[in-house]
């Protein structure tokens, strides 16, 4: 029995490619083009056919609703999964909905763990991506050799669902860092500090963060706002994170401010806009020009 991968999008494709480099892999995506792009993989005729042929099925879909549809919707694969098989969900998912999905699979003897990733397509390609794994010790031990083919950075977060929780916590904090960075650099620029100098100094000091180093300096300050990540996707993760906080009686004072700012941006420039386009909105609201005029 083999390993299968369903969902060959922005994130799923490079993850599947890593697995393929280590051994045989069956893949499926609704887009035939995405399947064909994974040279060397066996392409299943349908998701259910893949589920019937594999005892380990990895998923990477846009949302947990898509996972729900794939498992239990019309033509859902749950009927094709055999008892004892394992579903590894790499979606940036909703812990509350996913727990229900895992419970339904458990009724038919199918195991499920969550293993969302953080590090982007570049990290996946480089084999350095972090995987945040939620499941029992035994489940983690069972999937460790498979995940090792993707990257050595598989972290056991805790029980089922905690991988998603960790991912949401990470993405909320990262999305907040983006807004805080834009605002702080605008403030510095408005008061005589050049944006490049502000970013250089902040990157050396206690305010140093991933966004400053990997996005602000190389991309935003050079006007390259296209990172392949849309405003709509950023908002989705922030919304899930804040809803999780609200459902567990946490104030989410800052997280909600972050979300409402992204909501406002979506209403202004659309959910398909690149997330770093927010820098231009902050520039407009602040009367600054941190994003250089690239003439386009």
């Amino acid at each position, binding site marked *: 029995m083999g390993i299968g991968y369903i969902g060959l999008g922005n994130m799923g494709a490079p993850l599947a490619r890593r697995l393929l480099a280590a051994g045989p892999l069956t893949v499926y995506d609704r887009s035939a083009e995405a399947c064909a792009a994974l040279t060397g993989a066996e392409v299943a005729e349908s998701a259910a056919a893949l589920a019937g042929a594999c005892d380990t099925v990895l998923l990477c879909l846009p949302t947990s609703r898509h996972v729900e549809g794939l498992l239990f919707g019309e033509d859902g694969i749950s009927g094709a999964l055999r008892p004892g098989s394992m579903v590894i969900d790499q979606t940036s998912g909703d812990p509350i909905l996913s727990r229900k999905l895992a419970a339904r699979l458990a009724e038919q003897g199918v195991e499920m763990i969550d293993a969302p990733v953080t590090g982007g397509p570049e990290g996946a390609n480089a084999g350095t991506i972090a995987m945040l794994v939620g499941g029992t010790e035994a489940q983690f031990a069972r999937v460790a050799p498979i995940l090792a083919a993707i990257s050595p950075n598989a972290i056991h977060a805790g029980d089922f669902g905690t991988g998603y929780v960790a991912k949401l916590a990470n993405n909320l904090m990262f999305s907040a860092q983006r807004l805080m960075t834009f605002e702080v650099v605008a403030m510095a620029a408005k008061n005589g500090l050049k944006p490049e100098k502000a970013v250089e100094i902040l990157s050396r000091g206690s305010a140093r963060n991933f966004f400053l180093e990997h996005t602000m300096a190389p991309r935003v300050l050079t006007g390259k706002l296209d990172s392949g990540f849309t405003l709509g996707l950023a908002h989705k993760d922030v919304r899930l994170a804040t*809803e999780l906080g*609200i459902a567990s009686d946490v*104030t*989410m004072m800052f997280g*909600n401010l972050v979300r*409402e*700012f992204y909501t406002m941006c979506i*209403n202004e420039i659309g959910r398909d806009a690149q997330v770093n386009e927010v820098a231009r909105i902050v520039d407009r609201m602040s009367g600054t020009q941190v994003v250089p005029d690239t003439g386009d």
Partner: protein
Amino acid sequence: MKLGYIGLGAMGGALARRLMESGPLTVFDLNAELCADFAAEGAEVAESAAAMAVACDVVLLCLPRSANVRAAIFGPDGLAEGLTPGKLVIDQTSGDPSETRNMAAELAERGVEMLDAPVSGGAKGALAGTIAMMIGGADATYARAVPVFDRIGPNHTFCGPIGSGQVLKLVNNTISTCNRFAMLEGVAVGVKNGIAMETMVEVLNAGGARSKSSETMLPALARGLPQPQFALALMLKDLNLATQLAMDSGAPLHFGQLARAMLQAASNELGPEANIDEISKLVEAQAGMLFRD
């Protein structure tokens, strides 16, 4: 047209008493003591919600949450067991609009009509007949229910399809909670700068900052008078519904979200039984001052 009222708490009780001034009323509450009080005042007490539905043409409800309304209608001995086609359910709960739309659709399958008609203005306003009622439902159903609303007071406004009254009530409570926090934190700045509470009562109510909060909560704070009873937990419920509604409709609620977070913190710190005015104690602690001269 025989009327029944379910839910005789602070708000429902006042609305029911107002209705009793102009005619007979059948009442029901899970709390037998409240029913006994109303029996002593001349109301007929139904044995159950189901029995009330058999006996009445129009049944009004005012309960803490939409989940309670669902239980009262569709639970064991619920209204649905006695409702027949042509009868009318009027929900005065500050409820969840989407859940109300679901219940209205389920009632419509049985030929029963439904309106949502939440209120704003407190128990005092209900008894005085000045309370504002915001109504959602079919035009024709509203037209049919106008004589019932008139018996409570003249301030009823038709807002749109079912759920619209509750949408507006959530919007209202979001704005009023923002007003409350904005008033408290602004007055704290005044106090810390040596301005007398009574001076602020006078000036703020004469100026552009005037709101229900500055007109009622502020003088009560300044003079150490009792505040109207309204459970903080219920206001938090409304802000949770309102912020969820805003998220679902893609509209930012920058200020409403902050107010929700402050209420959530207050609820965690003061406990589930706290009254809404106790947020002033938290603001005092947060601002390092006291709301008195």
